[in-house]
């Protein structure tokens, strides 16, 4: 039914989430940004992609029906599942352990408002994508739960669950670019028409 080894959870850094896609209302999406023949060769996107590639983001954008943890992105201990809506299953939902804020000591569950995974219907798996594929994926309303570019940028730069990546709590590595710098890079990419690297 379970493994005692799951007790080791306390020793492992709880990685997680920057996937607050569900916490946004799914507004009527604007037109999909057309795949762009990038005049900058995708440099404006790749300037901030290290944040998206970081375990704080990728631990919930990885393959499989479960979250991951830690800078090594190991599978979430206790066999935690994505569940039918991305919020876990029955008596083991994300909110069973995760609060809306980090708790004040190491090895306790991290937290932020709306803690969850992308839903299985739109799992937003970034693992294995090239930079170009990742860029097109996050721009595609069919793969980003209906966001147009403005909504995408707002999500990336303001969503409280995404912001957790800069404040992940004791024992967890934050995403690698300061938030102000990241926001400026994302908005520069937006202003240029959100160009993507070649796929």
């Amino acid at each position, binding site marked *: *039914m*379970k493994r005692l080894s*799951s007790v080791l*959870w*306390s020793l492992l850094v709880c990685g997680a989430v920057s996937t607050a896609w569900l916490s946004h209302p799914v507004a009527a999406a604007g037109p999909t940004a057309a795949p762009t023949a990038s005049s900058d060769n995708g440099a404006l996107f790749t300037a901030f992609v290290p944040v998206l590639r970081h375990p704080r983001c990728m631990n919930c954008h990885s393959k499989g029906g479960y979250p991951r943890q830690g800078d090594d992105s190991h599978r979430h201990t*206790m*066999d935690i599942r994505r569940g039918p809506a991305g919020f876990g299953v029955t*008596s*083991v939902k994300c909110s069973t352990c995760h609060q809306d804020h980090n708790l004040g000591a190491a090895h*306790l569950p991290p937290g932020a408002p709306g803690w969850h995974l992308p839903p299985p219907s739109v799992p937003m798996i970034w693992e294995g994508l090239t930079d170009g594929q990742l860029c097109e994926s996050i721009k595609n309303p069919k793969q980003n739960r209906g966001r147009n570019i403005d909504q995408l940028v707002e999500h990336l730069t303001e969503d409280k669950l995404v912001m957790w990546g800069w404040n992940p709590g004791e024992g967890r590595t934050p995403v690698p670019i300061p938030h102000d710098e990241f926001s400026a890079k994302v908005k520069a990419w937006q202003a240029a028409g959100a160009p993507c690297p070649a796929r």
Partner: protein
Amino acid sequence: MIGFSVNGKRVDLEVDPSTPLLWVIREQLGLTGTKYGCGMAQCGACTVHINGEAVRSCVTPVSRVDGKFVTTIEGLSPDLSNPLQRAWLEEDVPQCGYCQSGQLMSAAVLLREKPAPTDEDIDEAMTGNICRCGTYPRIRRAIHRAAEMAAKGGAR
């Protein structure tokens, strides 16, 4: 002041909002059926319900339950008539018993959402509740038994 319902009874407490709900339940309200196990949301012994959802009370600040409904093992039924409690007794599930209130509270949420759970449903739902005595096979049997009882008429 934080006010909430515990097992149907309204309580209003002057308490530090960051106090773990578990301490409030056990020490201020005297409901000691909910157990302290790890204090880190790893073992499930402290599981209670907030508005019907399972939570680990050891890591839940009491501020989270302001205005909400908390159910502890004492509130599962007033007379052991809940099918889970009956099934637990009939299957003789507990050994030392320490984890069992948490096991029951998790199982209660499972059966509410999946009244006829499969073994896989049970494994998924109970994965966060540790039993050092290894009563897992009996827990699984008891959940199936409770589901059958509930299907035939629920609490007696």
